[in-house]
């Protein structure tokens, strides 16, 4: 009889906490849904999808087999984060000590995740912008393989951004640093050798054209303006 009484007492004691957990969970789910709805409306108002298309996010998502629009993706990510947070807070309500520790570590980790995401997004935008600048300049300077040079610049910037992002998250820090150094250093060395030996004639022709221009030689025998 006593064990049943003890069990009954335990259940009675824990019921308020369970009830609290359910309240927190339902509030959290409702909040998440409302927040997702508000974000979708806000993104539609500021034409976020159009901006994402112009920056190449939509193309990147399509290539990664994400069928959602950028606004839906961001809204769903926010919704998911709210759910996870709510779940952890709900578990805290029933006083599970392991959960409290996990929650503390989770909250401590969030700033690093946010900075890491910020670094990746900034790196991506910078790589697209710089790649486009390089492409346009190379095409207008009549440099062959303009697309290849542009792509190489984009890759370099993204590799750098990913390395910094992983370092921020503290994932295999030393391995990442070592791998990045080897890759980057090797790439620069290879490019130097390749262009130095293979691009001698090209560099000579390019420099000759620049020198001729500064000596008064004009490529076109008429004035454009």
């Amino acid at each position, binding site marked *: 009889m006593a064990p049943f009484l003890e069990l009954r007492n335990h259940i009675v004691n824990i019921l308020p906490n369970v009830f609290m957990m359910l309240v927190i969970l339902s509030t959290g789910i409702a909040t998440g849904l409302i927040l997702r709805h508000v974000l979708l409306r806000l993104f539609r108002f500021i034409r976020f999808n159009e901006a994402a298309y112009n920056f190449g996010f939509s193309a990147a998502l399509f290539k990664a087999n994400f069928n959602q629009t950028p606004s839906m993706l961001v809204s769903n990510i926010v919704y998911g984060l709210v759910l996870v947070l709510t779940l952890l807070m709900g578990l805290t309500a029933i006083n599970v000590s392991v959960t409290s520790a996990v929650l503390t570590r989770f909250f401590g980790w969030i700033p690093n995740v946010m900075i890491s995401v910020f670094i990746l997004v900034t790196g991506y935008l910078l790589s697209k912008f710089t790649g486009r600048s390089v492409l*346009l300049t190379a*095409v*207008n300077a*009549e440099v062959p393989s303009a697309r290849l040079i542009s792509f190489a610049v984009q890759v370099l910037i993204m590799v750098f951004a990913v390395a910094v992002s992983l370092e921020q998250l503290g994932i295999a820090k030393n391995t990442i640093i070592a791998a990045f150094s080897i890759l980057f250093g090797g790439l620069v060395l290879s490019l130097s050798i390749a262009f130095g030996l293979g691009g001698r004639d090209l560099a000579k022709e390019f420099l000759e054209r620049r020198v001729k221009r500064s000596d008064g030689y004009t490529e*076109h*025998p008429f004035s454009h*303006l």
Partner: protein
Amino acid sequence: MRKMVLNADVQGALAEIRTADIVVGIPSFNNARTIGHVVRAVKAGLAKYFPDRRCVIVNSDGGSTDATTDIVLNTQIHDYQTILVQHPLFPIHKISTPYDGIPGKGSAFRTIFRIAEELQAEACAVLDADLRSVTPEWVELLIRPVLDGNFDYVAPFYLRHKFDGTITNSIVHPLTRALYGKRIRQPIGGDFGFSGTLASFFLSQDVWESDVARFGIDIWMTTVAICEGFRVCQTFLGAKIHDPKDPGADLEAMLTQVVGSLFDLMETYHFRWKTIAGSEVVPLFGFQFETGVDSVSVNIERMVNHFMRGLFDLSNIWASLISPKHMRWLRTISDPGPGPFHFPDELWVGVIYDLAVSYHQRVMNREHILQSLAPLYMGKVASFVTDNISATPAAVEDGIEKLCRAFEEQKPHLIERW
């Protein structure tokens, strides 16, 4: 807007001169080789055609390190009779001063406008400091329409080689004509005449910390004069021969600056050009003549290759800026078959209007939009040269007139999409 303050030396000179009827401005930067001739031509022109007027020559200098300013101040005409000119009634004053503000022709002009305003000048003119073909008659041709014709703005009309001024012929002239309804043949000529009233108006505008001060002053002056209701005309000056400003001047930079200024002005004056349909003739003064045409050797193949390379490497960027219909058309013309390469006028107009709309809507970084125009422009120039290799100047002008009409006809589509 910060009001412009003239330095103490200039203020002292202005206090001494007090008023002037005519101010002729010459902006300069390291033009020691040519500015002496320009100053002599201006002095002779003022003495010959306006001997009874109070005249001032203003050199607005960008910090020359050669002897430009010394040459301006020391240049004299020792014997007016040898150039068949009488001594002027009033001495022709000269002021040489460094200009204040962002480095560029616009800032130099601002100083000239300010001095003209202080002296309450009735008529003004500005001339480039590197002109080799300037004559005393240019002074009369730029000033007389203002003084006697009651015009406020006098744009130049030069005699040019049929292949010269391709940016003007293919973009600036037809676009300005279609947008603002005035047929000014050379809106960015470089040498202008204007009234003191217009100079004060220019001065009152808050543009002197922008690209107008750096490189957009010419098209800005022309557009403002038209859109703000001032009376505009043109004057025939003959051939313009000058030292190339920079032989290594990058075509991409020139195109970016000129077209960027045009597109920026479209945004400023959208309320005006949306209501204008067609265009009207602008009076042209001066005795027109023609000369023989020198043949030039043009590397058409290289220009076509530049266009093709643009089509191959930049098609993703172009597809974001140009309508699908025009993109398909561009791909079609890239394969002309056995015939020569040809870039139709209608396609060129469509592309320019598409880029203007994309620029306005900031579809991507504006500098990138302007840079992407360069291969398209080279394609159009290649086609223009191919079509007109044996044509007379009159036939070339007919072709440009046809292009202008195409710009006017497609304007409703631009208005719809803006």
